[in-house]
């Protein structure tokens, strides 16, 4: 456990100045700010339609979730998996990392957990900034009536589901980025996977849930009712199974990996 903690601490220390780390903080702020600015400048039109507060929240959050969930989140997950491994490939530091008196499981798990942590921080910030910006809109223009409904439950459920669904993609991409050091393979495979996921999920193919890249789209296409929406649905279970199996597969790859 101590080896895992110091490995995790080292992952944070060496990546705190990289784009992958800052992207987890900046992405929610930038995307939510842009959508909020759009709502603010179009406030007259939106207020004129006199949406009830719940529908207004859904419209506003949907604009953020639509952009983020279907496109930016999968790309961010692909980039995070690439970045966490590439820091070692690029600097040729696998040899020094595996020459440390630490067990290989801790080194590998710390890398994986750090990627999970970055995605968690990113989605948690998305949830917080989404809520905060909604209330900011109401503060700037009280015609919006964002104060009449609390979207905390539905947003918490949606972002939790998106987080769990991203773990399947992360695990696939993590193995690809662990094996190959170049940028094109993980990005290319991720891009193709993403297109397949988008098509199969949007066409409601019965087996789309078996493709990890389709999971965020499947989550966002569900009926969004705070009280009835379950967290653990078919695509979430599938994503977690993929994550568990591929995490262990990655560990066996690390065990067999020769540092040439």
């Amino acid at each position, binding site marked *: 456990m*101590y080896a895992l903690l*110091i*490995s995790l*601490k*080292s992952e944070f*220390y*060496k990546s705190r*100045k*990289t784009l992958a780390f800052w992207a987890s903080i900046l992405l929610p702020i930038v995307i939510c700010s842009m959508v909020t600015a759009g709502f603010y400048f179009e406030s007259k039109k939106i207020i004129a339609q006199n949406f009830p507060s719940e529908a207004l929240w859904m419209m506003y959050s949907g604009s953020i979730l639509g952009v983020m969930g279907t496109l930016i989140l999968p790309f961010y997950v692909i980039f995070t998996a690439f970045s966490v491994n590439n*820091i070692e490939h*690029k*600097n*040729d*530091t696998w*040899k*020094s*990392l*595996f*020459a*440390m*008196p*630490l*067990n290989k499981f801790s080194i590998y798990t710390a890398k994986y957990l750090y990627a999970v942590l970055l995605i968690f921080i990113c989605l948690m910030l998305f949830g917080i900034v989404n809520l905060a910006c909604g209330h900011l809109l109401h503060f700037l223009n009280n015609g919006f009536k964002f104060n009449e409904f609390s979207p905390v439950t539905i947003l918490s459920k949606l972002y939790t589901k998106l987080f769990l669904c991203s773990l399947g993609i992360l695990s696939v991409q993590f193995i690809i980025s662990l094996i190959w050091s170049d940028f094109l393979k993980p990005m290319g495979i991720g891009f193709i996977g993403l297109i397949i996921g988008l098509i199969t999920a949007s066409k409601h193919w019965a087996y789309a849930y078996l493709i990890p890249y389709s999971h965020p789209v499947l989550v966002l296409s569900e009926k969004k009712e705070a009280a009835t929406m379950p967290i653990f649905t078919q695509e979430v279970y599938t994503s977690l199974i993929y994550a568990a199996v591929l995490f262990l597969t990655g560990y066996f790859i690390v065990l067999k990996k*020769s*540092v*040439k």
Partner: protein
Amino acid sequence: MSNLAIRTCGLTYHFGNQKVVDNLSLEVEKGSIYGFLGPNGAGKTTTIKILLNLLKSPSDTVFIFGKEINANRIASLKRMGSLVEQPAIYAHLTGKENLVNRCILLGISKSKVAEMLKLVGLTDAASKKAGKYSLGMKQRLGIALALLSDAELLLLDEPTNGLDPNGIIEIRNLLSDLANNYQKTILVSSHLLNEIEKIATHVGILNKGKLLFQGTVSELQTFNTPIVEIITDKTEEVARFLTTKGYEVINPGISPIQLPYQSTEETGKINTLLIQNGFTVYSIHFVKKDLERLFLDITKTN
């Protein structure tokens, strides 16, 4: 109890079908500076990676302080510091941050960072990004990273690579100091015989994965007798003439003519003899054998 820091028993390693280490039996005594010599591609770096368990060795072939490496990986690595090939440093971090990161991984106090930076002469460049370091500075940082854990056994793969003459002397003195005053065992690889001769107590010579020689530096000297090289206007005639005068010509008919070196006085006598007999001597000087020639001699003897 064994006095060996490193012992390999008939170690063989393949990359695919290519045998890169062939039946290697290294014996590195505690407290020694072991010069691990060989040309590029001899298998030195592969051997060092096997000693660090970066490449998996067959069981019961590699022992570090008497313990089998595969069964005692973490315990063995705790006692080792290493520099393998190009220094493994994070280019986006400063020199100081690279050392702090290593302290985190080793679970040791960060107070050693300043001491290490001073030791390798990087105090002024501590806040500069390591990616902007020159090759020599990177090498120094790599050495500082290897020394940080205060390990008993240091494995240094060509540590003077890229250093200027002053830097080479400083590192040489540092290694001697570590072995003599801090009882460290150091295995240092190089392809330069004269560099190793100046610091090593023991030498192992590797070629094409095979250990050609292993022993003390004085034992190596029996193979490494210097030679006298003569360049004249009449190579073949001079070679014949010297043979008739009782000298052993190593390479008859080839310029420069080579004779075993005996003494400075004897070299002077040869020069005088040639001039008195009407030969023009363009150059006469003594040279030590290069590694390639030494390999040939050792192989012949073996």
